[in-house]
């Protein structure tokens, strides 16, 4: 198998599957080239992430990336989360085959987009 045990484990038993409702923010990102899709919801209280949830369709690394990302988010501060990129997600999965790195990139996009949305809401509500 080309995938790490970690990828397979997250693919077969993904964590935090679902969607969170208001006041959580939700974003949905798509890789238009291959159609992979991740929906990410996160609930922040102050600058701490309290809850996260995901749904995903795509190849196993996409599902695993979304799953491991949620795991990485819980109890982190927003500024810690701002540092999560594709490299960190890939590392958390013990690596991805070269031609599957786009999965981690998509998950990273999801969290960065979610962060922006939170910041935007904070800014507009304050």
């Amino acid at each position, binding site marked *: 198998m080309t995938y790490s045990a970690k990828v*397979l484990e997250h693919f077969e038993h993904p964590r935090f599957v679902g969607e969170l409702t208001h006041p959580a923010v939700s974003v949905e990102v798509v890789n238009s080239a291959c*159609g992979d899709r991740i929906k990410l919801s996160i609930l922040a209280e102050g600058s701490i992430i309290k809850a996260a949830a995901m749904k995903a369709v795509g*190849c196993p690394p996409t599902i695993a990336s979304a799953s491991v990302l949620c795991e990485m988010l819980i109890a982190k501060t927003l500024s810690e989360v701002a540092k999560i990129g594709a490299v960190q997600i890939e590392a958390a999965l013990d690596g991805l085959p070269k*031609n599957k790195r786009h999965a981690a990139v998509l998950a990273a996009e999801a969290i960065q987009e979610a962060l922006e949305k939170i910041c935007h809401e904070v800014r507009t509500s304050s």
Partner: protein
Amino acid sequence: MTRRIYFDNSATTFVLPEVAEAMQPYLTEFYGNPSSVHSFGQKARAAVEDARRKLALSIGADPSEIVFLSGGTEANNLAIRGIAQAQADKGRHIITCQFEHPAVLNTCAALEKQGWRVTYLPVYKDGLVRVEDLLEAITDETVLITIMHANNEVGTVQCIEEIGKVVREIRLQRRNIFFHSDAVQTFGKLPINVKQLGVDLLSISGHKIHAPKGIGALFVRKGVRLVTQSTGGHQERDRRAGTENVPGIVALARAAELAVANLDAFAHIRYLRDYLEDEISRLIPDVLLNGHRERRLPNISNITFKHVDGEGLLISLDLKGIAVSTGAACSSGSTEQSHVLAAMGLDKELIRGSLRFSFSRFNTLDEVNYLIQVLPEIVERLRKLSPRWSHAR
């Protein structure tokens, strides 16, 4: 250990013990070079010519019409390039169809870059070429028609005999038009007679019929001139240079004999395939069965599972010990979409959720039952993960 079930026989097959046994002596004992005059060489030569007779017999050809080479890809390359180059001054138009194997499509594309014109016939939703389209495409410049016997992803079987008749009729007017068919997926699965099919060239690959990888053959009708693509020694009547792969050749002929003798087994395979399709349709909602229902190989089933990703299904099944494929074996390692299903008009979202199940005569009902037992759960699990599934319902 998990059970290992192989439903990917259109990608490749295991080598039968009888076949491995037949080739064994030509590895370690009768290892001469067939071009050598001494008895080591003559023993090898005799084995090659015996294999040639057997393989020829299995498709109704003359032994002199068989060229042994390294596989289906080389056979397609030699047929297409060989005819195109031999007829270059007569005309530079080739007709093929949109969902041929890459060994045909990419060879045609290479010729396009060198000034040939290629028409790609449509295959429609049912995965079948229409003779009307072919008739319309033929011009005075047309020197080669290459249409696969059966498609490797959906199994639809083309009307080769009808096309053969068209070509023979044109040949009453002019001699320089040739008909090639890639029979890599049908040889050993459907009865094949080259005269009845009316083909001038026909490609065969060993590893799809329980012979080893690295051996194949091209039928070249007597009198058909080809430009060889491999220059060197005078092997294969100057049609393919290189020391003959004696054990591979012996194995191919043995596997062909066994396949043809067991063509009956395809009734059993058809039963398994139809049972699988019925059960999947019954147990799993939102599936599509791809390709014409009747005019197709008995051993291939191509099914779209809406709202899931094929690779996810494939990996989940693999973790249960079941091997299947998403699209053609040779493209499933890349992120390319199946050009076969695209040619049949399936949109991207449907293509990505498609699996191919392909059987051999050694698969069992028990194996299919195991698949049916595990697959519905897997599909459901993955669908529930999809952000689009709830909307879609």
